[in-house]
């Protein structure tokens, strides 16, 4: 059995404007998502993230290429019964209450009525929606988002598509959602996450794709994205002439830079770094910390979208 739950092969999506101009939203996008992982899709506004999710949900048809979930086209309703989806902009009609809204969403996924009766209270508790008896029109944005998450889980889906799931939630709510995503992954569910909050994506995702102008600009694990730059920050207790002289004996002037008591240094290799540390100890000066410089996902992302090589 294949481990890839989601497969996107050379997908292109073009839209035609009213003036007859063709706008390309996706160009030759290929990616795959493995079972039981959290996959993060990031990109600027208009990069094509929502278009790709819509194609994966059968809401839009690709102009070229193919998308498959569990080996089946998403247009097939029986395939979609195994999906859960939280859209970025969700409209909840005023007349609903949480329970009948979830019941309706469950019925659209052919969930058995008796099963739903048991599942709905559990789901509301799981997403932390305690005051659920009032009509949805009286819900805050955060409550609506929690209800949206509950509806995405109502059919106990195997694949979950979440478009900005922490939108409108306070920091505690965001942590709740992160914890929920980790729990769901532990239960074997595959999660396709689209978020602008890069710190969150970095925290929970197993694999990340950066979409830029409708193409896959980069695909890697968070560790690969945030790998070391080769630079080190060495913090010492104090800097005097002896310390500067000790540094100058090992390091060329252009390879090191003092910022108060911190030395920014790019060694040739590990022995070069150790040689500098030995010299500093012999100066003598107390070394407080040695820290490799790493790119954050945000820095990496900004470099990718601005066209600079990370």
């Amino acid at each position, binding site marked *: 059995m294949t481990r890839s739950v989601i497969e996107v092969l050379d997908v292109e999506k073009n839209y035609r404007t009213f003036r007859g101009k063709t706008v390309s939203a996706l160009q030759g996008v290929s990616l795959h998502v493995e079972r039981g992982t959290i996959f993060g899709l990031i990109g600027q506004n208009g990069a094509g993230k929502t278009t790709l999710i*819509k194609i994966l*949900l*059968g*809401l*839009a*048809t690709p102009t070229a290429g193919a998308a498959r979930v569990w080996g089946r086209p998403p247009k097939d*309703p*029986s*395939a*979609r*019964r*195994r*999906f859960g*989806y939280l*859209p970025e*902009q*969700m*409209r909840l*009609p*005023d*007349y609903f209450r949480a329970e*009948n809204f979830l019941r*309706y*969403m469950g*019925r*659209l*996924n*052919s969930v058995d009525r008796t099963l739903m009766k048991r599942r709905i209270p559990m789901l509301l508790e799981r997403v932390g929606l305690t005051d659920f008896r009032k009509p949805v029109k009286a819900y805050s944005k955060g409550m609506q988002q929690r209800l949206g998450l509950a*509806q995405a889980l109502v*059919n106990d889906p195997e694949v979950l*598509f979440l478009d900005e799931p922490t939108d409108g939630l306070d920091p505690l709510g965001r942590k709740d959602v992160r914890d929920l995503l980790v729990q769901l992954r532990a239960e074997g569910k595959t999660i396709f996450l689209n978020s602008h909050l890069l710190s969150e994506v970095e925290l929970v995702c197993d694999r990340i794709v950066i979409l830029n102008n409708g193409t896959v600009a980069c695909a890697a694990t968070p560790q690969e994205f945030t790998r070391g730059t080769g630079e080190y920050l060495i913090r010492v207790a104090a800097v005097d002439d002896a310390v500067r002289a000790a540094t100058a004996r090992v390091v060329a002037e252009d390879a090191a830079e003092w910022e108060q008591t911190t030395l920014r240094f790019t060694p040739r290799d590990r022995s070069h770094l150790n040689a500098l540390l030995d010299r500093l100890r012999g100066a003598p000066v107390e070394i407080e910390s040695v820290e490799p410089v790493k790119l954050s996902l945000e820095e990496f992302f900004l470099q990718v979208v601005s066209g600079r090589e990370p």
Partner: protein
Amino acid sequence: MFATYLNSLHESMSRRVALVLFGVAILIAITFNAVVHVRTLPDGATMILVGAQPPAPPAIAVPSMLESILRATGSLWVLLAIFAAAPLLTATLEKGWLELTFSKGTSRWKIFLGRFLAGLTLYSLMFVIATLPVALRLWWKTGIGTWQMGIALLIQTFGFAALLAVAALVTLPQKGVALPVIAAAAIWLLTPSLAIRQETFYRIFSSHVMRGIIDWTYRILPKCSELEDMCVSFIQGRTITSWWPVWSTGVFTLLVLGTTLWLLGRKSF
């Protein structure tokens, strides 16, 4: 589809326009009951009095009364019910809601058809509320069967289905409820003139080409006014000579609705 159908009925009950229409239907039922009086004369004969009109025997008065009810409610309801039913269709395609429903494991056509059927049910319910009390009362008091109103209801709903299908088709390429309502109302207003086109359009257009276009327009479009006339004939006990309005309207409805559902299935959102 049934889940969507029930949900759409629930939704329509929460809309103010539907509640107002139900209120009007109840008011009409009360008014008709108030103006109709059934009197038993000293010789044992039953007479029916409608307002200030002279008393008439039930065999004449009951069909005549049913025709009045049908004319008043049938025409009015078609127009009013479009206002209540069209929003059910446009709401299906509202951003933020269509993503929720169309991403679920039910085909789009089933969701849309469920809402279409809920719109028809809404119309039938209003018709029943407005006409059933007086029809039942006449039957109970006079013993003359008023079951023909049931058949009339089915025929009228059939005509309404054609108009709602037009509203459904117009819903697809645009947002908002105004255009679907206008399209359905325009056809409803056009059909009586097309049915008597020799007295209306032929007087304006003398060219063969234009008259040919008008004839084909008549043939293609639903025959709402003729369906209403059929209902009246049926209630009056007259023989229905031609089923052409029924089957041509049926073909129109099926084609328009089928096209709508096919386009909806192919549409990229």
